[in-house]
């Protein structure tokens, strides 16, 4: 009965109730969206990289290096000379390195030049290794491995050829048409920027960029891994074997570590003993003969999160204020409606409704609006997030995954309903305190 009365009462004042509903819905939607983005960004952050002890690049800035190497956002200002990379690799503390060469794209997706070490050593999330859903790592110089989202979005499979473009725009007029890369593998979804990257060999990337459009794939087939001393010997030896490259698979014999590019953009470093990370970082940063910059990914992520966290806290605070304003609006609406409702409340009292029942009735109306607003907001948030998902991942590297409404969203909804209860107490108490007699007799 109380539900019927509350609902009919709201229907009676449908225009004010509707406006209140809209304002609360918008404010909750905003609050939930901010919260979802916040939690998803945090989750994306923590998932992005693990097991990498140092990231080394040309001296620019900690964040620039982190964003370009891990999030595929922006590019390092300068490259690192390969000799420096080789020297780093020779360091006794270093277990492995992953060179990364950035700057190209394929249909808007970042192209990353690297070696097969990337697929062997790179880890994300809780030390999870990359897994191939299809195919394998680089099996030739003009091979490429693509992330799960690219395969899904563009419908690529192993064996397909792709052309990469120079530069970072979505549309490029400088395509490396003469050097189509053949997809050798597709990675399983990780929920990190890896899903949206095209990995190519350093050798293939350098070939695509060489002025005479030649390449040097086959000489590396049987070269020893430690080839830093042979850097330029093979440069022009096999200029005419391009056709071979596309024609025959070289799966078992391809050794991309034999190739030495002139320079790379960044290097991810894994150490034999993580404890030495700070020491090595210090030595790299202090080395005046080779100006390099080494960052600890964990610390850089923390710094980036601190910047983001402040913005996030500010946004969350603003959204909470908007919700508070909307709830005050709800209370105002109820108070304003009380003037016209004193008589009906007196009638309800006269037919036996007790103080608790009347409080419940007024609060039920407020709760009905709040609950309906919450349901609408959740629906809206789901739609908005579904629409914004591709944009957020391509523009900001934020990957929406898992359950949208997490623990914090549920806490927000619960707090909002509690706040509704509190703000509706005042009009409810005011209603009951009005005299019974004066309203019934029209005094």
């Amino acid at each position, binding site marked *: *009965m109380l539900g*019927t*009365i509350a609902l*009919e*009462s709201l*229907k*009676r004042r449908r225009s004010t109730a509707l406006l209140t509903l809209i304002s609360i819905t918008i404010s909750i939607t905003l609050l939930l969206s901010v919260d979802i983005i916040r939690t998803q960004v945090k989750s994306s952050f923590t998932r992005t990289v693990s097991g990498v002890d140092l990231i080394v690049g040309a001296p620019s800035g900690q964040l620039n290096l982190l964003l370009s190497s891990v999030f595929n956002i922006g590019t390092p200002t300068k490259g690192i000379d390969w000799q420096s990379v080789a020297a780093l690799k020779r360091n006794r503390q270093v277990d492995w390195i992953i060179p990364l060469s950035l700057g190209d794209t394929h249909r808007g997706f970042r192209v990353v030049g690297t070696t097969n070490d990337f697929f062997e050593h790179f880890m994300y999330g809780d030390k999870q290794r990359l897994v191939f859903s299809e195919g394998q790592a680089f099996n030739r110089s003009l091979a490429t491995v693509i992330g799960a989202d690219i395969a899904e979005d563009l419908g690529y499979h192993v064996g397909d050829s792709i052309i990469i473009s120079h530069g970072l725009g979505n549309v490029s007029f400088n395509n490396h048409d003469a050097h189509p890369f053949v997809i050798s593998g597709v990675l399983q979804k990780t929920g990190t920027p890896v899903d949206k990257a095209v990995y190519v060999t350093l050798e293939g990337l350098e070939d695509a960029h060489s002025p005479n459009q030649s390449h040097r794939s086959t000489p590396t087939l049987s070269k020893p891994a430690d080839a830093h001393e042979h850097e330029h010997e093979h440069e022009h030896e096999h200029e005419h074997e391009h056709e071979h490259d596309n024609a025959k698979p070289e799966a078992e014999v391809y050794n991309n570590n034999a190739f030495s590019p002139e320079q790379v953009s960044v290097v991810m470093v894994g150490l034999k003993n993580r404890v030495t990370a700070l020491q090595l970082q210090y030595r790299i940063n202090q080395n005046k003969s080779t100006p390099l910059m080494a960052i600890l990914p964990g610390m850089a992520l923390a710094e980036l999160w601190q910047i983001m966290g402040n913005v996030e806290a500010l946004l969350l605070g603003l959204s909470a204020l908007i919700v508070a304003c909307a709830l005050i609006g709800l209370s105002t609406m109820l108070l304003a409606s009380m003037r016209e409702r004193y*008589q*009906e409340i*007196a*009638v*309800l*009292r*006269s*037919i*036996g*409704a*007790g*103080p608790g*029942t009347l409080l419940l009735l007024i609060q039920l109306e407020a709760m009905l609006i709040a609950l309906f607003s919450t349901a609408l907001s959740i629906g809206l948030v789901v739609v908005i997030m579904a629409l914004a998902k591709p944009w957020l991942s391509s523009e900001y590297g934020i990957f929406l995954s898992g359950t949208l409404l997490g623990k914090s969203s549920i806490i927000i909804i619960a707090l909002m309903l509690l706040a509704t209860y509190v703000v509706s107490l005042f009009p409810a108490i005011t209603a009951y305190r009005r*005299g*019974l*007699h*004066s309203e*019934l*007799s*029209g*005094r």
Partner: protein
Amino acid sequence: MGWQRVYIVYYKLGNLVGADVLHQKDSKSNSALAISVDALTFSYTPDSQPVLNIPQWKVSDNQHVFLSGPSGSGKSTLLNLLSGTLTPTSGSISLLGESFSSLSPRQRDKFRAQHIGVVFQQFNLIPYLSVEQNIHAAVYFAQKQTTNAVTSQRLLALLEALRLPQSILKQKADALSIGQQQRVAIARALINSPELLIVDEPTSALDTAARDSFMALLKNVAKDSTMVFVSHDMGMASHFDTTYRIDDISALNTTQEQASGASSC
């Protein structure tokens, strides 16, 4: 309206076996005195003159009492005191054997809902609820131990007695004519089979023919209840067992304007 068909059958079966659902009463109606007022005074504000001073007034169970008096003589005030919407300044009121004036506001609300039916001068139906919802609200808030079947049976009987069509149940209260509102207000007041019915000038907007017709209806549906009916129209006195002028029971002989901004319960 499937339930209505079921209860019409139920109601007719009830009639066949001689049950009179309209005039069933609670055990409290066995009390010999329905109303007992002792040394009652009432002032709207502590500093103002009392508008009522009743040394003693008693109404027996099942009596239909007509209370008249000029405007401002305190008759509506007395009804408000009897219905518990006003609290006496001093003295006591016992209703149906219960010391009504010493109950807490909440207890008074509950007692009123369960034992007293009130027909207000302005009818006071909740405008956005349907007729059915208005009447069912009275049942719901009274929290009487009764079944839906009995309530629905009584509702249909009341509609028939008040000559209201069943189709009116779904209409909103604010879409009714004055006459319909009046009868719906009576149905609401009687739905819980109250032992005491308080009626405050509901015929003021009616012509003589309509008024007599209404009174015949009211007497019929409330024949097993004690009724206190207030009006300034002495022409209606013939419909009642006992007639009082407010001056007969109140020690005050002056007519006083009642202050506005009444103190309320």
